[in-house]
């Protein structure tokens, strides 16, 4: 799922500096799972901001807390309508999607991001999250034995490996596995090395023009036929 990391307290304090009444808004889905912006983190951030305020002596802010099940659905945003009357800014701990959704709905309120949305990934174990998917829109995991070369190879190349691999690790970091070594070994195990001998032409980056839209419903002419 979407994995995010809370911004540093210093950065958050700078962002909220000019706003008096701040609503700290959490999200109950992805950022709860990765422990960056759920109800607990909302409460913790609230406490941290209060300590900071108490220690620095200038008590300019008053904080309120609320957590929505999700920030990225309009129906959930409806539940905020009564709560933003006495608020000068919303500090959203939702992912970038949530921040934008809240900002669009409450366009006359400044909406500030409290977390850095980092990647789509999964936990290795409690407390450790790894990136797995870059949403390239052109999934070819079938060719690479289920290991994504776009996310797990630091260069994201399709005809790997490069010459920088050493001891199965990437040149960019000794902690990172060389994805292509992993792919080779797994293809070997599946007896599908042919996949790696094949030439892969350059990626179609048109798959991700920004901002992208997927229309999953059929467009139907009222009174006419399906398109």
């Amino acid at each position, binding site marked *: 799922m979407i994995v995010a990391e809370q911004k540093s307290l*210093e950065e958050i304090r700078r962002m909220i500096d000019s706003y008096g009444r701040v609503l700290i808004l959490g999200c109950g889905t992805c950022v*709860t799972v990765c422990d960056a912006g759920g*109800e607990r*983190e909302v409460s913790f951030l609230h*406490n*941290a901001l209060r*300590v900071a305020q108490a220690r620095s002596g200038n008590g300019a802010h008053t904080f309120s807390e609320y957590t929505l*099940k999700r920030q990225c659905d309009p129906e959930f945003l409806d539940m905020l309508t009564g709560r933003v009357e006495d608020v000068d800014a919303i500090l959203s701990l939702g992912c970038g999607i949530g921040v934008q959704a809240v900002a669009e709905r409450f366009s006359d309120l400044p909406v500030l991001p409290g977390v850095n949305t980092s990647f789509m990934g999964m936990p290795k174990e*409690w407390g450790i999250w790894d990136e797995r998917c870059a949403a390239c829109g052109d999934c070819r995991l079938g060719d690479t034995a289920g290991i994504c070369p776009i996310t797990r190879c630091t260069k994201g190349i399709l005809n790997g490996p490069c010459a920088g691999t050493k001891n199965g690790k990437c040149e960019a970091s000794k902690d990172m596995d060389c994805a292509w070594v992993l792919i080779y070994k797994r293809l070997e195990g599946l007896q599908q090395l042919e996949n790696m001998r094949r030439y892969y032409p350059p990626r179609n980056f048109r798959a991700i023009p920004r901002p992208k839209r997927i229309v999953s419903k059929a467009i139907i002419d009222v009174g006419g036929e399906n398109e």
Partner: protein
Amino acid sequence: MYSSVTDDTQNRRDRQTKRLSVDRSLMPPCQAACPLHMDIREYVDLTAQGRIMEALQVIRNGNPFPSICAYVCTHPCEDACRRCQVDKPIAVRALKRFAVEFGGDRMIQSEAETTRGEKVAIVGSGPAGLACAYYLRKLGYPVTIFEAHSELGGMLRVGIPQYRLPREVLDTEVQRLTQMGVEIRTNTRVVSLDLLFDMGYKAVFVTIGAHQGLRMEIEGEESPGVIDGATFLREVNLGLKPSLGRKVAVVGGGNVAVDAARTALRLGVPNVKILYRRSRAEMPASDIEVEQALEEGIDVRFLVAPTRIKRKNGRLSVTCVRMELGEPDARGRRQPVPIKGSEFNKEFDTLIVAIGQAPQTPGGFGVRMGRGSTIQADPITLTTNRAGVFAGGDAVSGPATVVEALAAGRLAASRIDDYLQRRYPLGDKETRQRLSGDLLLETIEMIRKVGRLELPTLSPEARSKDFKPVELGYSWEAAINEARRCLRCGMGAEILFQDKCATCLTCLRVCPYHVPHLDASGTIQIPDDQCQACGVCVAECPAKAIVLRKPYDRRQITEELDHALKSAAQSNLKPLIIGFCCQYGLFGTGALAGLWRGAKAGIWIVPVLCTAKVEADHMLRAFEMGAEGVFIAGCGEQCARENTDFWVRQRVEKARRILAQIGLEPERLQAFVSTTTNGGDPAEELDRFAERMGNLYLASIIMQEVRS
């Protein structure tokens, strides 16, 4: 346009708050098994925290005569205790005794005043009668106890030997009733209930016990030298010293038989045997009694029963036959069957018959009798066939236990009250769910194995000489350590707010006991019968969907912290240091308990029930309210729960990261662990910490001065 969801979020929050104040703990097996439904888990936990006086209060709330149970209760709670599945059950009775003695139960005065006009008569002053008198008196009724013997107590007085229940203990308990204004008429045998009603009593509770010894119905039973067990014990307890000769046999396998044998020993009989017709497994006497009897040198012969007694040369010649166990009877107990041709003769000076007792109900009572000469009474209302006549205790059930009699007495009081006030006798409605289910092997594996501390006893040689109490009490440390073994059944974690749960699997991953799991529909379940109530998942759940079942556990740290901060603010000692200290550990019960009294200036202790529950939020709040330094002191390796130190350190690191960004030195927040095992002295570490905080505080004062 999107359709809007009904905005009842405020209602939702209100409902949440209400739910949070409800006790959602499950009734543990110990409480369910206790006839009095004592809140055993509660007082054991208080003992583990070193709060003995409060533990005693909990005990007294459920039991009017705790000292008696402390000595002689048969502890069905211990048999039901789930710790049995791990190692040995919690020694509840021993802990109760510790609370009673350490807490000074005998100092506690009981008071009552008369607010009602209806007089109630209680016939018989055994535990049922005493309990009924106590509760009726508390309700304001004038109560009179009629007791045939010269002293109150029933079987407690005449049946249980003094090495098990010392005289002073019983006297003190009985005194309470006098203090409360119960009228006591000893040496008064009631033969007619009509007379009582004529005297103006509006209700009568018949609780005459079961004192009539059953007969073996064999030839020669009338011979001199053959005495009834219950009678024997009564005589000894009333001060007589019957001469028994040098060789005594006791027939029977219940507590009366064992008591009789051990009493005979203490009267100086060198050779005492018990003859029982079934085997050890079927012996109804409690295990520990039999153990102690064997230790004292009493010989128990199983699968043996007398068939004929002859008097010969001033002694008894008893013909016995060997038995074997045959088919089970209607109640499932295997019937003993004599083995033909296996007769043998033995000579004894005295034969004590203790094969059972039955009530001796005078015909003048006019109550219907049932099986085994017991009085028939309705199990819910305790009424008999006569209006206004209630019955309970051994007189109704046959010989049973003290605690069952106490429960019957308490029930009788409320039923008599219903009757006199013309209320509908509603059944007892226990709304709390009972905990069921055994511990899984996986859970048992993770639970730290700590052996049960048995009550120390006098050595067999020392104790068989006289009637001094056999059991010695626990020391302070023994009691605390024993109480800490409790698994806290039914007060663990539950996912109260299922709608908040994102199924992030954090609780599943962090639980040291691997308790939360995914069910078939992919929902997280936290089985209440496996949870060890450590509190880790509660503190780590990113959605705050999990709570502890007891409201006290939920609020405790926040309330205690606020309280400490208030006191600190009033006293204004600087530097202010807040210490979250485990109540179960050094600070609560051990070497540093003195810190409780604010013995060190500026240090305020927030007692917590295990540091695993202290969250980073709590640490920050202390700093917000002006603390210069915060420390967390846990039990380290001695912690009864797993992994707690790891979590404390995780949260300390999290809070330190924030401190660093605010310009507070991370060293202001420290985790101390109970260092009894690794050699450091916690008092010294704490001193050093306090000194350092003092320096930082002075430095900050100076900086402020310099700036201004």
